[in-house]
């Protein structure tokens, strides 16, 4: 019997930006979030920041997660945050996952990224963080 939880009403958009075809990690996150009770929307591969923002507007998402393994996170994420600001979406929590150097983590957080999940972080920690941000 299905018991409705707070998580059921929250929509999370997961996306991949730019020329980056490594989607093994994001697929694991998709399944883990779905099993935990969230509604997950996946953008697909090779998206531009404009397409991600269009999707976020139409689906009225509660959080945006971006996976980047191509090394071009600074360019893509700053572009995305610019687009989000110009569309009044800057209050939506944005989190990044992927292989990201520690000095870039600080730079990304300065740009407006709420959290960066690097290499080797347990999936449970990501869910806990999302719970904290969206449900409390």
């Amino acid at each position, binding site marked *: 019997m*299905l*018991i*409705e*939880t707070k*998580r*059921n*009403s929250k*929509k999370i958009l997961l996306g991949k930006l730019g020329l980056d075809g490594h989607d093994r990690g994001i697929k694991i996150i*998709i*399944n883990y*979030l*779905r*099993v*935990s*009770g*969230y*509604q*997950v*929307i*996946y*953008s*697909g591969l090779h*998206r531009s920041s*404009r*397409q991600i923002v*269009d*999707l976020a*507007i*139409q*689906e*009225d998402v509660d959080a945006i997660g971006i996976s980047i393994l191509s090394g071009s996170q600074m360019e893509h994420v700053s572009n995305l945050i610019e687009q989000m600001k110009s*569309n*009044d979406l800057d209050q939506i929590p944005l989190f990044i996952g992927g292989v990201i150097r520690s000095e870039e983590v600080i730079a990304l957080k300065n740009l407006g990224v709420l959290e960066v999940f690097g290499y080797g972080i347990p999936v449970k920690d990501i869910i806990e963080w999302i719970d904290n941000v969206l449900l409390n």
Partner: protein
Amino acid sequence: MSKFLNKSRVFQSFTPILCKIEALNPINWKHGIPRDKTDFSSIARFISKIENNNLKFTKIKNKHKINITSITGAPGVGKSSVLNELINISLNKGKSVAVLMLDPRSSISGGSFLGDRLRLNLDYPAKGVFLRSAAFSQSNLEDSIKIKSILNLFRYLEFEDIYLEAIGADQNNLNFKKFADVVVSIPNNLNEDWVQVLKSDNLDLADIFFVNKNDIQSTEAAIQAVMLKNSLSPDQMTSKKVLLGSARNKQGILELYDEIHNITGEKNVN
């Protein structure tokens, strides 16, 4: 002063189209119904209110007849690809389009993966198509009410072509008939068992059968089409259509579009 302003705004909205207001629940006005079908962010936020606050949006009368087309079929038969081509034709004919895509809700956690968007053209939002995904569980009555409310909102905003992509259910297409004016069913070509065809609820529920994948499975598609035609009763023969085509090659899609509009009696311009 502010009271007066509010009243005057309400009055303005009342004057042009009286028939709409009568049927609307007055509570709805407090929640800011969007007026403009190009303002995607306010439409999206209102749909979230329908989903989360259980707002009901009751059926309203439109000046023009607006068709809701539902597309059903088993997983993997090409619902999204056919939908993609139908949207393209609607756009070429200069119509405004809204799409609601349903995906199953997990029966254990209540979570869902809304992945129908992946098959659609990426530029549709920029071209003015409103796309929305929603989680749907067959057993949940509230979900059906929400979907009806969202479709009524699309009707109220006077989108000219409204599509509903149903979840991948084949044998029992449950209540999609009650949501839509026209039901398009896409059968599974690899299912050559006539017993399954006759058992399926589709024979009753669907108005049009679109046998897809005529490019790669042409033999199977032809068999499927003949099997469907032979299974129809004399009454159904006149009211239901069996079409053969391929979404990938854009074959038969225009005929499908015309047939959808013929059924609801709308004349096609062009």
